[in-house]
């Protein structure tokens, strides 16, 4: 059976929980996407931009010093941090912008948390000459002032969202309201494997290039598949991107790492699988942090990109079928991993990706030296340097 089914269901998860005004747009988007995914000229165009503009394929780098330091499994880093704009987000932004162009929608909108997806969307809008507006919670705008300025330099309008927790969740709601109002001229470039069908499927497909490359690269480097894949999970697009090509390889473990914030027991976290239960938020049925009445809980993470109350529905499905395992890393563990990777390998990971490295630190030493881990280094840490300084009490 194809996953998702034609209703956008991944088992009991997914679906299309949106106001009627958006239903025709989602049906139109799905039809357009189904046409283009089989269209050779679209695929050739996408490949051209991924190669010549984004810089794909990204390297699969053997982290020799980190491997030695941890004393267990061999650790390979999938270097999505080397993509143009500094994270995997642009794989999806390019795909959706090409699709919007074919659907003759001259305006793009997007939400952003940390700013990475906003910068990626602003970048492709500039490159394709499309109008662009980015929604961002005012709390996140303060935390990520540099990215706000980057988006404006790229010619995008950045609109602050002052509702609710003033973070990613509220930015998505506001982008959905804009789309509801301007649906005839506007394409909503959702940034993760979230929202109503076809977004979780389409974004997974645009990110699946990560795993396709990594599978080829590890076979060429080691002559065999890895034992374990590790990726951080906010909405979960970088994880889904890495995992997807390996799903049929049942012997390859897949581990998603959520943000445990100040610790799951503290209540200040974004670990949906540890602390949530299925519910509907922003178009999809999935694991959700909510109270007994179904009101969505506030979340906390040092990383704005993981600071979200729901998770992509296909992750909920992989959890249900036990195809993937989900664990979490605290703010402190992520910050320690940030330091470790900088010192051992000369690579500063994004704080999101540092959660995946934190899991490597826990599991590599318990594995045999001939075993292999592939970890998705989904973004680079330049955007987080100021925040890390602040946390360490350093004035720049």
């Amino acid at each position: 059976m194809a996953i998702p089914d034609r209703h956008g269901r991944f088992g009991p998860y997914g679906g299309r929980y949106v106001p009627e005004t958006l239903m025709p747009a989602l049906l139109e988007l799905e039809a357009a996407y189904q046409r283009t995914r089989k269209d050779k000229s679209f695929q050739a165009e996408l490949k051209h931009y991924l190669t010549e503009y984004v810089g794909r394929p990204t390297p699969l780098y053997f982290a020799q010093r980190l491997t030695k330091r941890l004393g267990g499994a061999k650790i390979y880093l999938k270097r999505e941090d080397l993509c143009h704009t500094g994270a995997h987000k642009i794989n999806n932004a390019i795909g959706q912008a090409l699709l919007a162009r074919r659907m003759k929608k001259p305006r793009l909108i997007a939400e952003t948390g940390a700013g990475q997806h906003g910068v990626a969307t602003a970048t492709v809008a500039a490159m394709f000459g499309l109008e662009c507006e980015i929604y961002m919670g005012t709390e996140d705008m303060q935390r990520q002032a540099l990215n706000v300025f980057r988006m404006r330099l790229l010619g995008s309008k950045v609109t602050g969202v002052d509702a609710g927790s003033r973070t990613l969740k509220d930015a998505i709601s506001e982008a959905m309201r804009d789309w509801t109002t301007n649906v005839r001229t506007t394409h909503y470039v959702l940034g993760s494997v979230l929202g109503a069908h076809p977004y979780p499927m389409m974004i997974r497909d645009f990110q699946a290039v990560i795993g396709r490359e990594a599978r080829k690269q590890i076979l060429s480097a080691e002559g065999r598949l890895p034992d374990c894949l590790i990726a951080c999970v906010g909405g979960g697009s970088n994880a889904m991107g890495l995992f997807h090509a390996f799903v049929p390889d049942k012997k390859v473990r897949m581990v998603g790492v959520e943000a445990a914030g100040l610790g799951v027991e503290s209540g200040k976290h974004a670990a949906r699988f540890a602390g949530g239960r299925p519910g509907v938020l922003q178009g999809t049925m999935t694991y959700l942090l909510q109270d007994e009445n179904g009101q969505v809980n506030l979340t906390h993470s040092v990383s704005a990109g993981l600071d979200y109350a729901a998770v992509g529905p296909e992750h909920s499905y992989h959890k249900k079928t036990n195809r993937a395992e989900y664990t979490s890393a605290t703010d402190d563990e992520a910050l320690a991993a940030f330091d470790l990777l900088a010192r051992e390998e000369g690579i500063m990971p994004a704080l999101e990706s540092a959660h995946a490295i934190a899991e490597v630190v826990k599991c590599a030493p318990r594995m045999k030296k001939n075993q292999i881990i592939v970890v998705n280094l989904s973004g680079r840490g330049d955007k987080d340097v100021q925040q890390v300084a602040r946390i360490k009490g350093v004035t720049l």
Partner: protein
Amino acid sequence: MNRLDQTFGRLKAKGEKALITYIMAGDPSLQDTEQLVLELERAGADIIELGVPFSDPIADGPVIQQAAERGLQSGTSLRRILESVTRLRDMTQIPIVLMAYYNNIHAFGEADFCSKAAAAGVDGLIVPDMPPDEAGPLREPAAAAGLHLIFLLAPTSTASRRAYVAKESGGFVYYVSITGITGAKLNDMAGVRDNVAKIRKHTKTPVAVGFGVATPEDAARVAETADGVIVGSAIVRRVGEHGQDGRLVHEVGSFVRSLKAAMQPG
């Protein structure tokens, strides 16, 4: 017989249109909500729509978002709203429709919610983020309890969506008059007339029009074509302004009287 069907039948016999008024439950408190419901009825409202405050109301503009925040601050939950409806049923038989986002109902439990809502005296449900395509888990329990599931159509709806949604909708079909969120401005009356006529081809269920109906003039124009006129943000704004100054019931009542007067035929 469901109170919604009775009301639309009675009004049709008189050649009148239904005035459907929306307020947010628990804004500023559930006690105020109960007072407001009684005043809305005295002022001429034919059907009451009670909003259920949700943390993430994606179909609503700023006026109703803020009302939802006030409702949550006053500790309003679906359970407590049903208790209010139960109390109101000792005093009024006006049809009451709940407008709730799906997650609040899902958290309550679909079947449990439908039977408790009907027992409290609720007549219908509007779930703005649940198109009929996703209504599976609610359909049977709602039918068993005698609750109407009211679905929405929009200016963007295609012919096939119109046919599908119009047939699925019970009590009335909710036509969203604008491409947008609650509280935006109504500026395409010709489009409203055209779409209401197209919906009528698919169903005998009454058609009510909402989103963007803000003034007595808007209400009068919409009443010329639709069976019901839904006014939400314009009332909720007045609740927000007068929630704490002792004039709440009076201000809301006089505004609703002006809407009703504008809708009288001839």
